[in-house]
């Protein structure tokens, strides 16, 4: 059977991981490649790197990061953060990235999704969507959930799929950081509406939250950052419990 995927997310700035890491004997906790390698050894199924470098050198630093990761890591990974044009994506593909994740740039210019899918194939194009509920409706937000748009989230996700998105990374900003569980109800609605994989993000606090998101929404993958980085949940333990709950996961 096709496995449900567990995906640690690493925030990277100027080639270094920015969130604190406190779970294994890392020589250098700020080295994204060493951290990524550790996660792959633990049984992570995939990795997402979110590059928040804000300098003019950003494309160069992202390409260097992707090359170092591709040299060392034997599982698929996605790179996101500030990808605005075909040339950015092309450089990252050639550096060994399996997928790129686009957020604000796609909202501002939806035709970018069509262009990327045509140039590189749908499997390369992950659309990241930050959603927050306003007056009972899920609305797409930009800039890490601070800036609301006019778009209803489900409409935008359907549009992204029809334009050539190969996967949706959906972060609930209302749940993000709460450690109170994923937004299972909305994830189920989105997952039922599309025919491409959905990655759940925002709210992971316990092993039970992962069981719930897979059982209740049937999404393809679940992403988290701090619970993994701080060692609150160890991936081998998580997978053991998921398997005991009849959720198909990869054994390593």
């Amino acid at each position: 059977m096709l496995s449900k995927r567990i995906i640690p997310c690493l925030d990277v700035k100027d080639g270094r991981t920015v969130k604190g890491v406190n779970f294994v004997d890392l020589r250098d906790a700020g080295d994204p490649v060493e951290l990524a390698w550790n996660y792959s050894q633990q049984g992570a199924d995939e990795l997402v790197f979110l590059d928040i470098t804000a300098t003019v050198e950003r494309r160069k630093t992202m390409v260097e990061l992707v090359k170092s990761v591709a040299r060392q890591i034997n599982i698929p990974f996605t790179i996101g953060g500030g990808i605005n044009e075909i040339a950015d994506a092309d450089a990252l593909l050639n550096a060994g990235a399996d997928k790129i994740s686009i957020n604000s740039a796609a909202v501002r210019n939806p035709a970018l999704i069509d262009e990327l899918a045509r140039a590189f194939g749908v499997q390369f194009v992950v659309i990241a969507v930050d959603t927050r509920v306003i007056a009972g409706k899920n609305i797409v937000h930009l800039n890490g959930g601070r800036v609301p748009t006019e778009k209803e989230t489900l409409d935008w996700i359907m549009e992204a799929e029809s334009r050539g998105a190969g996967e949706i990374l959906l972060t609930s900003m209302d749940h993000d950081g709460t450690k109170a569980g994923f937004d299972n109800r909305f994830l189920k609605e989105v997952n039922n509406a599309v025919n491409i994989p959905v990655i759940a993000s925002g709210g992971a606090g316990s092993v039970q939250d992962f069981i719930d998101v897979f059982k209740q929404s049937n999404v393809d993958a679940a992403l988290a950052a701090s619970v993994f980085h701080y060692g609150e949940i160890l991936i081998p333990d998580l997978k053991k419990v998921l398997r005991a709950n009849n959720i198909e996961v990869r054994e390593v």
Partner: protein
Amino acid sequence: MNEIKQESNLRDTSPFRGPGGIGIIQYGAGNIFSLTAALERLGIPYGMINKEEDFEQYDRYIIPGVGHAGAAMAKLEHTGLVPSIKALKKPVLGICVGMQLLTSYSEEGDSKLLDLFPIKTLKFAGDTNFKVPHTGWNQVFPEMGNALFENIPNGSHFYFVHSYFIEYNVTYTLSSTTYINKFSASIMRDNFYGVQFHPEKSGAYGETLLKNFSKI
């Protein structure tokens, strides 16, 4: 152009360049950075095949490939290497679309392919319960004993990304996977092998498979 530049840089700087290794057939269908990185991690010598004379330098060959099978076949034909590939007697491994090229036909683009295997590449039937492309880690079950799967337990997970699959065939299917239907996860005929999954992205078992191929 970027892609070609990248690959030729790699070729020029690789410490593993040289005879006796794996020749990767270059025809411009997809990026091979991750594949060459995996070979380097494993210490398997490799180089690039751009023209007919390059074949004799290597003991085995990989046909990589992602994207559209019909477009990939057109690019492969454009290299002029097709007659040499069909005549190869040393081990050949097609990966993903590179595997599909070994079959007779693909529904993708209604394309005639290399016909080294008299079986077809078909599109997954639309089904509301199954998303297409088939994306992620799925289990692979050997259908017969083979050195390619040595030290890889039955039912190990490999990483797949594909919308078309090679039909199951009792003679040529080396291992199978089930998604919507049972299909060929890998095939073998004489010296020709193909894998639908990406061994270079399939963790430790993927690396074991590449290592096994380097010894066949």
